[in-house]
């Protein structure tokens, strides 16, 4: 064989190897066609049609995918196993961001019985989550205040607020304003402010006294200024309109005269220097450590930190909902269930649903929910509530939860309107606002434009 033909032969072998690999790889079939076609997203559990399902008496291992850093689900699972020894939990933990990005593939490829969920609408419409309506009927969840479950209902169009139930909450989280009682006393703030103007006065006093009025996180991919912005939106406008936008209701817009007033008020706080000067590089944990170290007067955060703050700053933290413009007006707050769902093809859906019902109705579970989770449990309005130290901030957040319920002011987080609205719109735009590179009106117009593009409107 000549050298040239030998070379040709080698080239041919190499080429066929490459070609074979590529052909094997691409196979020229349409991506995704084998997944979830046979799943009916509206199909609930048939076993739940009669009596309420249970975990039975045979050994059951519930595969559970939870958010790391939050002790509540683990504590609940331990207590559940104590009460139902035949049920154990196989727990996988990840950070929320990892869960968010993994959710579709995990639900499709390795369906867990219970999973902490990000925004549910895409997962529901893709047929990856179990329709829980039959469980809601069997367990009587549909008799609870409707607002508790509305955020987890998704209709055929992928809009939330109505339609079948696709998830349940371990509790009902809520955000508001935590404040340092010692620092507040230094500037004469002995009670929570009752109007926005009063709060503004305290913020100025804190600044004059050399105290950072607010250390809000807003760095990296976390636009934490969305917390005060949404609270201001509730003070100036109607929470129902914000919810309509977040739930993708037809023709909903975030760019309204009321939200503009809210954005301008936030811009006023930025320009007055009420936030830390390094706000655009502050992450959540730095904000927490600064607040716990007594470096800032207040922070916008959620009641999931109540238990933590009671431990780290005992009897030195207060909590209030952002006050209305005028005294006596209604208040609103970001309030959402700590959402858990059951995969459409989960192995033990009945037992998982029974666990979710137990979390909301069992007295021991509700006590854990309040003491460890720091938030109001799901369930009927007149359900058992554990005793809480009246001087604790947990007590204050629970009381605020009652106020929100009375005022019907619960709002889903504006960051959950679409899968990418937080990372692609709110965060960069709020960071620009903090740096003086965006106007309040421009912020709302740009976010609305992105929103319409993302929902295909």
């Amino acid at each position, binding site marked *: 064989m000549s050298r040239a033909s030998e070379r040709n032969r080698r080239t041919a072998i190499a080429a066929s*190897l*490459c070609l*074979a*690999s*590529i052909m*094997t*790889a*691409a196979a*020229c079939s*349409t*991506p*995704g*066609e084998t*997944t*979830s*076609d046979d799943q009916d997203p509206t199909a609930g559990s048939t076993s739940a049609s009669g009596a309420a399902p249970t975990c039975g008496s045979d050994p059951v291992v519930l595969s559970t995918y939870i958010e790391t850093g939050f002790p509540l689900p683990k504590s609940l699972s331990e207590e559940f196993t104590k009460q139902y020894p035949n049920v154990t939990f196989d727990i996988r933990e990840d950070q929320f961001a990892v869960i*968010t*990005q993994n959710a*579709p*593939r995990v639900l*499709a490829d390795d369906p867990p019985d219970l999973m902490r969920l990000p925004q549910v609408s*895409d997962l529901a419409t*893709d*047929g*990856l989550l179990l329709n829980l309506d039959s469980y809601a009927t069997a367990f009587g969840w549909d008799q609870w205040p409707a607002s508790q479950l509305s955020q987890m209902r998704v209709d055929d169009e992928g809009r939330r607020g109505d339609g079948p139930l696709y998830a349940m909450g371990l509790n009902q989280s809520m955000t508001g304003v935590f404040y340092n009682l010692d620092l507040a006393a230094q500037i004469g703030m002995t009670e929570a402010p009752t109007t926005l103007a009063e709060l503004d006065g305290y913020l100025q006093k804190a600044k004059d006294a050399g105290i950072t009025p607010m250390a809000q996180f807003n*760095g*990296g*991919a*976390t636009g934490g200024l969305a917390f005060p912005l949404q609270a201001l939106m509730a003070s100036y406008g109607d929470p129902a309109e914000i919810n309509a936008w977040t739930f993708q209701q037809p023709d909903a817009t975030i760019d309204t005269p009321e939200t503009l007033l809210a954005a301008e008020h936030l811009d006023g706080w930025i320009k007055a220097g009420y936030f*830390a*000067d*390094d*706000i*655009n*590089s*502050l992450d959540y944990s*730095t904000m927490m450590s600064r607040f716990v170290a007594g470096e800032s007067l207040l922070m916008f955060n959620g009641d999931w930190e109540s238990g933590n703050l009671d431990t780290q700053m005992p009897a030195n933290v207060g909590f209030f909902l952002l006050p209305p413009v005028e005294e006596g007006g209604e208040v609103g707050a970001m309030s959402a269930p700590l959402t858990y769902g059951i995969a459409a093809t989960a192995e033990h859906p009945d037992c998982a649903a029974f666990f979710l019902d137990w979390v909301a109705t069992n007295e021991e579970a509700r006590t854990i929910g309040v003491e460890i989770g720091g938030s109001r449990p799901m369930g009927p309005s007149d359900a058992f509530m554990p005793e809480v130290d009246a001087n604790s901030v947990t007590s204050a957040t629970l009381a605020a939860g009652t106020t929100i319920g009375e005022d019907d002011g619960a709002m889903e987080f504006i960051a959950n309107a679409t*899968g*990418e609205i937080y*990372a*692609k719109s709110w*965060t*960069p*735009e709020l*960071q*620009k606002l*903090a*740096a003086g*590179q965006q106007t309040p009106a421009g912020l709302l117009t740009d976010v609305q434009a992105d929103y319409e593009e993302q929902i295909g409107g």
Partner: protein
Amino acid sequence: MTATTGTSGRRETVESSTTSLQARRRALRVRRLRRGWVALALIVPAALFYGVFVLRPLALTFQYSFYDWNGVTEATWVGWDNYTRLLHDDEMLGSIFNALELIIYFSFVPVILGLFTAATIRKFAMSRLAVVSRTVLFLPQVIPLVAAGIMWTWLMASDGVINQTLRAVGLGALARPWLGDFDAALPAVGVIGAWVALGLCMLLLLAGMTKIDPALFEAARIDGAGAIREFFSITLPSLKQEIGVCVSVTVIAALASFDIIYISTQGGPGNSTLVPGLEIYYLAFFSREIGQASALAVAFMVLVLAIIWPIQRLTRDAD
């Protein structure tokens, strides 16, 4: 076999020599074939891995780039739409420009500083100080990029060592939250990249310098050349190949940067440090636009090749 006379003897000789030639050829072929099979056996596992983990994803990425797909449900064929959108999307274009700007920090700075430090260290190559310098400068290479990112995030925080130092020496006006400032964030991320790349460049260039014939320096000195003339006339031209390798490696690092930026800024503030690697990640995992992410990945791969290919050619020409 012995040589014989006469026709028959010649035939025998010819026959026997032919036979022996054939046998030798056969043996050679068998040996070649055996060697070929051995070579193939050695290559196949690596080729298989390469096919499954490099060529397959490459082919799939190319395929996905023509679909609108959320990663789960059935995809829709959209042709070149994802590529067309690349040209009209400010955010994606911006991420590419950011990556190009990072070349200054990730590549030019470490190569120039590497040349300077290598030339300096060469002067006292045998001393203990040179060993210490080499170790200190090379250390960032063995630190995981994620750890480097975290460390620099602390250093560059508003109350970090850098700002504390600036305030201590009376330059407090310059202090700022480096990674949270729209103007400073990209250069700040660039500093981290430069710090990481410097060690490798310095070591490569130092190795190149030790290969230069000392007689050249001696001759230059006799001709009255100073250190600077010596550097530009002898050292620099002799290091073309090493400089080519440094530039190639660091330019790829700049364009493909992900770890450092994900850890230190996650693309913020605004989108001031958004790079294609991060944008592909956001598109694929948060926006669930697998097709668009794939199109950006393919387009970006072509861009990287277009930038690296001339550098490689220049280096080859230098040989």
